[in-house]
């Protein structure tokens, strides 16, 4: 029982990170038709920026405060790099989807290699407040506290996104843009601002996932982003391209399945099981769980 609880909450923590990556990917794809291969690199860069800031902020005595400030730096860098990518690389190639995908592929490779060049391939240890590494007892299971932070962050982002779409004008424009971009533009609304905004939100979410992964895995290495990105892709396809709720549901399923199978079967089986799940979903529902076609 206690093992099961631990696996479940850990699986949800993993799923939370997948969701943070997948939500950005899914939004960017839904609105702009761009599959952002550099998304994993945003994650890596954001996480490294936070780690770098942790080292620079050593004047601050309180570790939790230092961690939080460094996390803010990471999120800001994540937003910045995403906005720059949109403005410099994606915007000039507007409506040329194949070139946009290729450019993000190149950027993803280059950024990851650059990070590896500056800080080597070895894992850098994260400075984490002790509370995060302590455990809390839930139904007899000792759960590391960081799992709750990951789940909480993902839920907050999900609710925040839903509220943003429901109650704000820009949210309305993004939603309308996902449904029918041509019509929104025909109504005289500048969708390009929404593009930059969506990229920035995706960048922040990716950086958040990166920082949380630093806590979850105890450190950060250059390949982290690419590795998580592949599972985020699986989540996006299972959830249905362009659907935030679909991504959330798929992230929970994928995270749990991976944890259970890795523990009860054998390590590595969980990763394969998730890929098999993807195949089954494609055979039964090619449009993913949400099953709707992305408008254009």
């Amino acid at each position: 029982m206690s093992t099961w609880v631990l696996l479940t909450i850990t699986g949800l923590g993993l799923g939370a990170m997948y969701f943070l990556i997948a939500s950005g990917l899914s939004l960017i794809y839904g609105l702009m038709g761009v599959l952002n291969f550099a998304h994993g690199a945003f994650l890596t860069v954001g996480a490294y920026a936070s780690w770098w800031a942790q080292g620079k902020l050593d004047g601050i005595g309180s570790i939790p405060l230092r961690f939080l400030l460094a996390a803010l730096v990471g999120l800001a860098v994540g937003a910045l790099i995403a906005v720059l990518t949109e403005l410099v690389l994606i915007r000039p190639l507007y409506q040329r989807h194949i070139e946009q995908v290729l450019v993000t592929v190149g950027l993803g490779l280059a950024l990851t290699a650059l990070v590896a060049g500056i800080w080597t391939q070895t894992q850098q240890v994260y400075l984490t407040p002790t509370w995060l590494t302590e455990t809390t007892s839930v139904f007899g299971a000792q759960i590391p506290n960081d799992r709750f932070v990951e789940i909480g962050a993902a839920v907050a982002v999900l609710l925040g996104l839903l509220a943003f779409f429901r109650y704000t004008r820009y949210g309305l424009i993004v939603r309308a843009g996902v449904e029918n971009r041509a019509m929104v533009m025909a109504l005289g609304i500048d969708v390009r601002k929404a593009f930059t905004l969506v990229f920035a939100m995706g960048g922040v979410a990716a950086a958040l996932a990166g920082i949380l992964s630093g806590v979850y895995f105890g450190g950060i290495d250059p390949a982290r982003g690419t590795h998580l990105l592949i599972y985020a892709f699986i989540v996006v396809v299972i959830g249905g391209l362009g659907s935030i709720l679909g991504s959330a549901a798929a992230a929970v399923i994928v995270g749990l399945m991976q944890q259970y199978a890795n523990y009860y079967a054998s390590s590595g089986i969980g990763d394969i099981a998730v890929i098999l799940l993807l195949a089954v979903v494609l055979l039964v529902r090619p449009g993913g769980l949400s099953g709707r076609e992305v408008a254009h």
Partner: protein
Amino acid sequence: MRAWSGRILSVAVPLAVFGFLALVPTFSVDIPRLFDGPLDTPGTLQILALCLLFGGVAMSYDLLFGYTGLLSFGHALYFAIGVYLTAIGLTKWEWSLPKTLLVVAAVGLVAPLVLGAVSLRVGGIAFAMVTLAFAQAGTVLVAKNPDGLTGAEEGVFLNVDPLPEFFIGVFNMKNLYWLTLGYAIVVFVVVRWAVASSPGRVWQAVRENELRVEVLGLRPFSHKLMAFVLASFLATAGGVVYAILIGGATPEVASANFTLSLLIMVVLGGAGMRWGALLGGILYTYLDQRLPALASSEQVQDLPRVFRTPLSEPLFVLGVLFILLVFFLPGGIAGIGRRGRRRGLRALEEAVKPGGARGGVVDEAEAGA
């Protein structure tokens, strides 16, 4: 007259090019800066052989990407099947060479048939993500090292005993070079023949406008699957040659980065063009092999750290080069001097456009097919 001279050229040019390449190991010429030793030394020949090999694999990828408009991110899987199955069959299971080749050929046909049939149920970008996921299964399997077969990070050292003697050892590098040249020629000929055949014309039509192909009463699904299986099989064959050339298997060949480098090779050379992929594969591999040497040269080492660090990472240089290429030379090297605007990548636009001919999702009619 024009048609005749065109036909003669299309035979004469490849004959001349490959004939020249076949003679390379007999030249004892030293090309300073480009290579460390004369052309007929094993070190230089191995770099050239790798260039030709990846040129061949890039051509097989171009069949998918450039000619059929299928943006696959999982081509590495089929190459890795060839590499690992050869290494494991000969070394761990102690099979004879013919038996190994037969098994590799069978797996090299069945695996893409099954995986292709599943992944082709979605189109465009979703196809890219699904193929990436399937290839990830290969990466996981290699890293997991079941029964000690794949050797995880260390890979497999090839047991060379079952191989014919003229392929063994550094002094036979000449023969290995000819083996890879033979592979490149076979892929070139097969791709040219396939692209000109009647299914090949349907592939190109699918790339241009899938819906129209369907309206004409042809079945895009089975044609795409055909292209997928052929391209994957050629990649598997390349994997066999790689295992023999390198003398084993390493996990890099199963990584997602390997597929991405194939993509870069094809775009670098010019997607969907006669010499594009081969040129791109050769140039990329050469740069990939030689950039570390460049980075450790004195000129680079004397630079300030801001320049030295990025230049020491081949993937950084290649990634940036790739971005510049997409912006300024989308037709690739083979597209230089071509009239008309940017044929190469523009022809592929339809393939990934959300809701173009066929967006992210397959409709019911095809799902039932």
